């Protein structure tokens, strides 16, 4: 059946210095979604990487033009579905910026509260899947994965009792939020973050005393400060490369200026540095959650009347770029409004899209096994890459 000529090429490829082209994906367990890499190998060392994306493309930007300001926020959560709360927020912030719509203080605090809980849940998913990716090094690997999912589950339960949904929430709307905290929720939330806080120590002692884990992550996939900025990677990747930038502090939105938290920065730029940044972010997020619960003001949760029709929200002519610090970095929405109930144009800056485009620059020179570790440390969500 096989073409004998083609077979010869493959056999030659194993010989030594010849190059071999290897396909990885689109269905690959370490791809965290549907992603295809075409690797050119010299022996086991990667000489070049070509990425093929778009398998999850739904043309969100066209959808954004066809749906109204009232309809789209719940669809926006489907871009980065692992951090739906922050994706929705970027869109409503852009609309509020153009329309100069005030958001009540309580709604702003609720937005911060859910955004930080979302960061905890999203980082749990990242840590679990990444440790599964480099699983061999952790003696089976599924342990950390299952621990992390156990913790993420607790946050999802909180979201479920708040919004009725576990993954895609539709929590934000132009002018505020849609749901107020149910009875007893604040106490449950405190208990949950306390428990997660304790378990973080457990993960850290498990991982950081494991030599195999350190070998697989230290000095692997180093991103220089210069390259990081030029490619436009954001979030923990940028801060793992020594760039001290966080939108929550440097361009605050939704009352983040009221909160007291640190921005972790690591200089090394390798997978381990990115891991350290995220582990510290976990704790900072938990700190913010507690502060938000302590300082939660009384008052309305939305400055607009409840929606009776989908075309009810009209935004005057104008344009704005609004961004939030999602778990994966700068999630931005560039919106042009023309006075109708729908935007004229919406550009979605997906953090994962920019983050993933770093791969061809850092992967060459590494071994095939390292691709999996690097890819996991980038933490892409393909709903957001392909949009």
């Amino acid at each position, binding site marked *: 059946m096989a073409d004998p000529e083609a077979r010869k090429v493959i056999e030659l490829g194993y010989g030594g210095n010849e190059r071999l082209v290897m396909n990885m994906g689109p269905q690959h367990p370490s791809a965290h979604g549907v992603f295809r890499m075409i690797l050119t190998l010299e022996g086991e060392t990667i000489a070049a990487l070509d990425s093929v994306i778009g398998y999850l493309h739904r043309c969100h930007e066209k959808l954004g033009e*066809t749906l109204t300001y009232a309809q789209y926020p719940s669809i926006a959560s489907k871009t980065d579905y692992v951090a739906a709360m922050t994706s929705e927020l970027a869109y409503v912030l852009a609309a509020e910026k153009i329309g100069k719509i005030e958001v009540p203080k309580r709604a702003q605090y609720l937005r911060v509260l859910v955004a930080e809980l979302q960061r905890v849940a999203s980082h749990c998913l990242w840590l679990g899947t990444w440790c599964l990716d480099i699983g061999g090094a952790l003696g089976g690997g599924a342990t950390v994965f299952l621990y992390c999912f156990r913790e993420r589950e607790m946050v999802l339960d909180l979201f479920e009792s708040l919004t009725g949904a576990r993954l895609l929430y539709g929590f934000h709307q132009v002018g505020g939020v849609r749901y107020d905290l149910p009875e007893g929720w604040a106490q449950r939330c405190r208990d949950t973050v306390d428990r997660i806080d304790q378990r973080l120590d457990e993960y850290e002692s498990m991982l950081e005393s494991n030599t195999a884990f350190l070998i697989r992550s230290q000095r692997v996939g180093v991103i220089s400060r210069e390259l990081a900025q030029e490619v436009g990677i954001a979030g923990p990747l940028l801060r793992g490369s020594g760039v001290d930038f966080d939108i929550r502090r440097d361009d605050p939105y939704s009352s983040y200026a009221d909160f007291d938290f640190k921005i972790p920065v690591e200089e090394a730029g390798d997978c381990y540095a990115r891991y350290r940044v995220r582990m510290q972010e976990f704790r900072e997020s938990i700190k913010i959650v507690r502060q938000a619960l302590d300082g939660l003001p009384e008052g309305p949760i939305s400055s607009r009347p409840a929606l009776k029709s989908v075309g009810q929200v009209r935004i005057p002519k104008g344009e704005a770029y609004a961004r939030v610090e999602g778990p994966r970095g700068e999630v931005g929405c560039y919106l042009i409004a023309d006075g109708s109930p729908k935007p004229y144009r919406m550009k979605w800056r997906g953090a994962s899209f*920019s983050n993933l485009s770093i791969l061809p620059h850092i992967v060459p020179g590494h071994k095939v096994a390292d691709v999996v570790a690097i890819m996991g440390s980038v933490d892409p969500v393909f709903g957001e890459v392909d949009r």
Partner: protein
Amino acid sequence: MTPDRAISLVQERFGLQAAGEGRYLTVEGVPVERWQEFFRFAKETLGCRFFSFLTAVDWKEQGLEVVCRVENLEDGVGMLAKARLAPDARCPSLTGLYRGADWMERECYDMFGVRFEGHPDLRRILLSQDWEGYPLRKDYAVDTPHPPYR
């Protein structure tokens, strides 16, 4: 670099008005033939080394407009610049200045058909290579049929 200094530099070098909402500036109407020169100036003189995003807007009869945002993270100055394209939709590529422009320009080509001159590998990125048309143009209807299973 302060926003005021950036505004006067843009005025001096390009004769353009940089409107600002605080530290984030917008420059409209960069001549397309000076697009690369403008971003070289933004990167080297204004210190905007962080590449945020690049996209386009279809203004129907008035043609396509390319929008690009870069930022100086140390001083917190952002620069969003726009250039109107001629009907042939050609635009100089920024890949030589910002490596992040590679995928963004491919996406912009994919969705709007903007031809970035000097881009090393201008292929479709999100849609399949044999896709017909440019979906984010205003004349591309949402229900345009396409072959199944794509």
